[in-house]
């Protein structure tokens, strides 16, 4: 049996190619992310200082709400023409399916963030801090946590009744540590980090990401079958 990485990469490439050909999906998700930011602006603004304070929270929630739409989509592709059966019949180990979906979703959400975050920075009048590379790291770690659990839970939710409700219902409470850590680390980095708090939150993010990466890889076999 092969190592599985060529298969995982093939699945990711296939998903992204399908996503690119039906651009409507990605564009709508981006548009939704921006709309959510605008709504937060109305809820929190128009005072510039208040907006700046609330920016990390608003941005992370906008990313979360938009990204969650991507996860069910990634399995919908397989369910449409019974392609999941075909996928399960290949002799490659099961984790390749999870790895492939994870990679595709990382690319999808990464691209989403690359568009939504700059828009948020403009809308919320955020000044870029000198330690912006660290901020990028926080964004990457936070997004990784969201995508890991999102991809995992969508494998179940997309095949249940009421999947639109079930995915966020399962996912959001589980993601509270990630969202909290991402928001707080971003906030600390944006406000000169007086208490050196960002480091602790970044460690928490790394820990969360690693724990759930391992746990979801181990559990995926049980979730994709049946």
């Amino acid at each position, binding site marked *: 049996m092969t190592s599985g990485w060529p298969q995982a990469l093939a699945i990711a490439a296939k998903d992204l190619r399908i996503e690119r050909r039906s651009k409507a999906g990605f564009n709508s998700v981006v548009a939704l992310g921006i709309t959510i930011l605008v709504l937060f602006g109305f809820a929190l603004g128009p005072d510039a200082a208040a907006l700046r304070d609330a920016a990390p929270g608003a941005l992370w929630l906008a990313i979360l709400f938009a990204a969650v739409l991507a996860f069910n989509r990634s399995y919908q592709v397989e369910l449409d023409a019974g392609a999941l059966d075909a996928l399960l019949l290949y002799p490659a180990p099961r984790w390749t399916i999870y790895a492939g979906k994870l990679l595709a979703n990382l690319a999808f959400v990464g691209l989403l963030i690359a568009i939504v975050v700059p828009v948020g920075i403009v809308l919320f009048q955020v000044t870029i801090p000198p330690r912006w590379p660290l901020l990028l790291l926080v964004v990457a770690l936070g997004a990784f946590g969201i995508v890991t659990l999102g991809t995992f839970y969508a494998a179940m939710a997309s095949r249940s009744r009421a999947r639109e409700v*079930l995915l966020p219902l399962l996912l959001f409470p589980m993601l*509270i540590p990630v969202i909290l850590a991402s928001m707080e680390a971003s906030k600390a980095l944006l406000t000169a980090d007086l208490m050196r708090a960002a480091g602790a939150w970044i460690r*928490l993010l790394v820990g969360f990401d690693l724990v759930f990466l391992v746990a*979801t890889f181990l559990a995926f076999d049980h979730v994709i079958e049946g």
Partner: protein
Amino acid sequence: MTAPTAAPSIPATGRWPWFGAFALLSLIGAQALGLLTSPADRDMGHLQKIMYVHVPAAWMTFVAFFVVLVASLRYLMTREERHDLLAASAAEVGAVLNGLTLALGMIWGRPTWGVWWTWDARLTSTLVLFLIFVGYLALRGFVDERDRRAQWSAAVGILGAINVPIVYMSVKWWRTLHQLQSSPSTVDPVYVLSLRANAFAVLFVTIYFIRRRYEAACIARVAEWRREAFALGGTSGQ
């Protein structure tokens, strides 16, 4: 899809009703001990006595969810349905205890802090835990196929349990970094005995409830199995 050839079995009720009576009596006894013997608290007066239900309920919430974790792991290892049914029963009881903990915490918080809710570390992480297991129970409700439901909820139960300490840690940091007061956590030794007695009493009640829910779940499964066998018109149904 393919049904088991043998009907699932219903566990014998045995001496469990006696255990239930014992659990109820010990709860009454422990509550009486707490209400009658412990003096009124300096600051809180008799309000403190809510602790004799609130704290044991909180502890037993964790016990119940620990049972979910163990039963889920055992299900994935053995694929025996009884572990799945046990996990489901423990999750139901755990969610009720969790809800009770939250409600009592709020009732206690109103006169103590002057608000129904405060973003206290323990209260908040208890709420997050509640939401995680509401998701678990919702998943069970939304998946009809038996094997799927068992496998998926086992995975969700295990991941949820793994997340409990992480949630607690993150909420605690969030609180301390914002430098707001946390709730008083030390317990006066006067109250320790009653608290312990009540903890054991609530533990017995929890065990009894989980057991009865488990029996009920097994009976429901047998009924489901018989309906299936009957619908297929086979004679192998018993």
